[in-house]
């Protein structure tokens, strides 16, 4: 009994120490063989959904989700710049989208197409390495000026626990003690729609209050195996 209690306590302590789970990264054969050399990328508006979970149930944190999304966009852009890849989300800013109504619709439709594929993509992530997944060449509509090599899709979903819920978690093991965020990054060929790269990871902690501090290192590690651009 004493040994069992001690093991349980040790497990809880180890879980508390670990801030995030290991990162998984998958590369398309053309990327792995350096057949494609990505130098420019467009970052699509991230789709982030964070819920506040309390004792009375869950409520959406719409504003906070947007802020974390904006933070993720900047972090990914910075991480790609470290790999000599010029990345921007400017064509999809609110101002740019309000000028061209059609682009807003096309963006929404292609985001939805990705979201429909995403469950299978995450489930069979290893098949990215077989070149199995593609969004089709219609993605080229997002880059009508042919200025980018790749499109970046960012998805994140998580829960932020209230103090009451955390206390509840102490009394009911398995119901969660920490706020968590699951993130996936997909990099897509802007001409063919092929999914060239997929990374997924999880973080715990204050990702709402301090997104830069909590997410920056995880994103950098998630793109570790992504090849840097080479000069033409």
């Amino acid at each position, binding site marked *: 009994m004493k040994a069992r209690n001690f093991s349980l306590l040790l497990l809880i302590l180890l879980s508390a120490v670990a801030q995030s789970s290991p990162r998984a990264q998958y590369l398309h054969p053309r990327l792995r063989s350096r057949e494609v050399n990505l130098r420019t990328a467009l970052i699509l508006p991230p789709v982030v959904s964070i819920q506040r979970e309390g004792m009375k*149930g869950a409520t959406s944190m719409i504003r906070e989700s947007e802020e974390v999304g904006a933070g993720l966009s900047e972090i990914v852009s910075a991480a790609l710049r470290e790999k000599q890849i010029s990345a921007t989300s400017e064509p999809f800013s609110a101002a740019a989208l309000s000028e061209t109504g059609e682009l*807003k*619709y096309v963006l929404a*439709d292609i985001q*939805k197409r990705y979201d429909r594929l995403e469950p299978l993509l995450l489930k069979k992530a290893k098949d990215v390495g077989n070149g199995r997944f593609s969004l*089709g*060449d219609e993605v080229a509509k997002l880059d*009508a000026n*042919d200025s980018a090599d790749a499109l970046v899709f960012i998805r994140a979903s998580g829960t932020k626990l209230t103090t009451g819920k955390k206390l509840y978690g102490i009394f009911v093991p398995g119901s969660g003690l920490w706020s968590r965020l699951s993130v996936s990054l997909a990099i897509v060929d802007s001409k063919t729609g092929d999914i060239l790269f997929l990374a997924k990871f999880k973080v715990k902690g204050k990702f709402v209050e301090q997104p830069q501090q909590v997410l920056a290192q995880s994103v950098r590690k998630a793109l570790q195996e992504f090849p840097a651009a080479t000069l033409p």
Partner: protein
Amino acid sequence: MKLRRSAHANRARVLILSICYTFVMHTAALPGRGVVNRTAPAKPFAQARLNNAPSSALALVQADEKTAPVTFNSDDLALLEQAALFDQQLEKKGLVYNDERLNAYLEEVGQKAVPAGPPPERVRWRFRVLRDPFANALALPNGSVYVTTGLLALLMNESQLAGVLAHEIAHVRERHIFTQYRSKQKKELVIKLLNVAATWSSAFGGVGSAISLLADTAQAVLVVTMSGYSSELEREADTFALRRLSETNYEPKELVSGLRLLTLDYEAELVPLYYGDPVKLRDRINYLNRLLPAGSTKPVSKEARAINRLRYLTMTEGVARHNVRLNLNEERFRTALALSQKLVNFNPASSENIFCLAESYRLLGPRPIELSGEALTLKGRKRSRKQKQGAPPDEVEGQMMSTPEGEAAWKTNQANAEEQYRKALELDRKNAGAHRGFGYLLEKTQRYQEALEHYREYLKLAPDELDRTLIRRRIENLEKRR
């Protein structure tokens, strides 16, 4: 640590927990209760609802028009704030269909459905269209009422639209959203408290199974009432809608006709339809049929009915075409085909409508035009969903093409598509989309020279379109093949 408790203490604990559970579930489960405090007595038609006695819609005309004042607590105000943010998000994410003429029309019909007098507190009526191929409507507590492009494309006349809007207005007016939200919170709190008790009960010995059973029962109750509004609230909204239709120049029976349209199922999907599952929908249709007066109280002439229908279909023709594209994006090819055919039946001289039909046939690919037999059973629907979810769309289509039936269906569909593209271009040689679509078909059927001609014509007619680079690339690839 081993705790010893007496049998009496254990029994007392179970009894106390049971009383707490019963009390909370009683107050949580009743619709219409909760912290939206009403200072006025219940209205006559609400009393009729509680008695569960069907009564003529006309008898409800006497009901008090004014809504009772409400007291908002912090949770309600937070919900209103979320509603406002949700409105902004929908617009920002390109999910709202913006067409000035259509918005003005929707506003006009919506305002007819709103009862006279100032809006309820913290409500500003706004009627908008959501870009979604599934037939649905939703209302936010701040007065934003959304109907989907799928619903607009499906309905047949203005009375049906007015019925839907009146139903949603009722949900806002009667504060159903706050009631249901508060009810949900209480249920979840009960379940959490019971889970705590269940987890720790084993340490005290003997009561674990009883607490676990209560927690399980609460879970089941929560799941049942969480799927949309409760049937009581839906009936209240339907009753209100019938009343409003009879007070305006619309036909109350069209509310029922509109609901019947929602039972149409071209895709054999497992997705629940409007307001939940088909069984609930049929219950609502039966209930509404009992409420309708035996004879028509306000006979509507054939001409008025025709004008009502013509006006509606004219105003929604553009959004219906947009909705065909949305259905094709969602791989709901048969729905797209049916709605395109409806467009062509309404306006056969429109090149754009025929183009929609052509696209639907082309993208239907190796699928049969109609589903039948095993595909329509529950087993068939589950298999279809499993197939769709188990592989990317191009693989699924490839698997279908590898069968003799799939290949035969593909040939028929491409032939139908070609016929419609040619018709569309006969009516209007400057239909850029038809040139592009026909180009795709010709490329797929390896008629590369003809495909090149149509792609080039498309670029001439629409040089600034977003897919210009895509089409140029296709032209380059085809030229390399020659």
